[in-house]
């Protein structure tokens, strides 16, 4: 039996670890806040250009984060449009149509996909661009489309896994209800199962959005640059917030640029936290809905 000494030691250890973790995290956030709070104003985002001029794209923003934020936004939209339908369909197939052996095999493949480092996905995207450039499309360079495609590959396993898990964890009685009323498998999926799993799937989409917003390794190989303005088309290079932060960390010209870097960190953290909170509350809403009994 565990003696009181070990009991106390164990508890102390757990408390200690928690304090170390929390402390480190607070130090990091605190450090960023202290160094960056002076940068937190509209100038950080819009530079010398006025708010409205920038937002309606009348004038270019040179010194601010706006192009990077716009770039990140376009990236997210494009990646999500590519990854969500594919991931959703695959997840539906695995959860509803695949036999156990088929399911095992594909799950293994997608686990591998999920484990591939982001830089390798970026390398793949870059190499594809190279290959296409040399063979068919000599006007194709790393661009928004390639980055979005590569990011879609990155978040695809999350979408698949979330959809599959959301559908598989629906109560067994719900699965039999629609078929017992004469629904075909497709009708059961579309009218009953997907609506019931929607909140979880949505939170998975939000997670994927977060992943796209924060990734740097993929985009630095496939089209992100330091200065490009608002992306003109899907075939142009673009700026992105995380890349800006990376770039500034080694290429800052003076103190104020560094301060802007800290400010950018705070903005990025803010965006990611909001996405996280949204995803968290969506998941909570689902568990409340499922537990709703009279």
């Amino acid at each position, binding site marked *: 039996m565990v003696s009181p000494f070990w009991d106390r030691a164990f508890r102390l250890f757990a408390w200690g670890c928690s304090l170390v973790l929390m402390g480190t995290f607070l130090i990091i956030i605190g450090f960023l806040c202290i160094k960056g709070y002076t940068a937190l104003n509209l100038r950080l985002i819009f530079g010398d250009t006025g708010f409205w001029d920038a937002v309606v794209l009348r004038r270019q923003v040179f010194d601010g984060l706006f192009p990077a934020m716009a770039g990140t936004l376009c990236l997210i939209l494009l990646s999500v449009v590519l990854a969500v339908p594919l991931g959703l369909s695959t997840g539906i197939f695995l959860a509803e149509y695949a036999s156990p052996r088929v399911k095992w095999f594909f799950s293994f493949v997608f686990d591998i996909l999920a484990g591939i480092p982001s830089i390798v996905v970026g390398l793949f995207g870059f190499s594809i661009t190279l290959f296409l450039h040399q063979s068919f499309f000599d006007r194709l360079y790393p661009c928004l489309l390639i980055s979005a495609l590569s990011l879609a590959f990155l978040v695809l396993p999350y979408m698949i896994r979330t959809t599959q898990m959301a559908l598989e964890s629906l109560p067994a009685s719900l699965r039999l*209800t629609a*078929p*017992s009323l*004469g*629904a075909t498998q497709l009708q059961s999926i579309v009218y*009953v199962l997907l609506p019931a799993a929607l909140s979880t799937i949505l939170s998975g989409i939000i997670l994927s959005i977060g992943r796209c917003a924060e990734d740097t390794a993929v985009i630095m190989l496939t089209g992100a640059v330091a200065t490009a303005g608002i992306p003109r088309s899907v075939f142009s290079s673009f700026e992105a917030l995380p890349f800006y932060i990376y770039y500034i960390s080694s290429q800052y010209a003076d103190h104020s640029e560094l301060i802007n870097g800290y400010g950018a960190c705070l903005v990025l953290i803010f965006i990611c936290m909001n996405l996280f909170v949204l995803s968290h509350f969506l998941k909570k809403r689902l568990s409340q809905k499922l537990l*709703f*009994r009279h």
Partner: protein
Amino acid sequence: MQPKIKIAGLDFYYNGRPVLENICMEAFENTITAVTGPSGQGKSSLLIAVNRLWESIEGARVKGDIQIRFGQTFQNIYDPGFRVPELRKKVGMVFQMPNPLPMSIYKNIVFPLKLTGGHKKKDAAFRVETALKRSFLWEEVKDRLNEDARSLSGGQQQRLCIARALILNPEVLLLDEPTASLDDTSGRMIESLLLEVKKSCTLLLVSHYLDQVKRIADKGMRLSRGQITQAW
């Protein structure tokens, strides 16, 4: 009395283990045929063999012949060309635990109509009302059809499920211990509504309440270890 359902040589395996062996029986039109016996002996499996719901359950396997008379002729529901969704529109099912879908009362009842498509809104409202009246639920919910079905009491939910199963006017209704999760009063209400329903339908009722069976069943049989041991 004409036979409605003819079952011959039915075997049911679950994960390789035999659950039903060589079941042969007949159910007659407009009667309540009861299936009784101790738990876990295959009563529910017999029901899901009749509407082929076992095909949605992993590990279940069925062999045998089930013929149901639709109109004048018997059709073997295990014929290769037989369309299963069509079968389930003529053979309804009510489960032991009420399973309202996560939607409003109205949408629950109208759901089978939505699956078949091609119904008009006015027509639907009338059919919903009829179905709810048949299951003795109309008076209690007519003013709150848009409320979530899960806000109803257990007995009401079960009557909702019965109404939902009745809206397509099935010729056969399968009931798997429909009153097991309810109190006495709700149970009795359902028993009286089943007596009304049988006038236009053939009922197959699984129940382990012997007094319930005595009250409402016309014919019955006892299943023990996957075989019929008694029939009356």
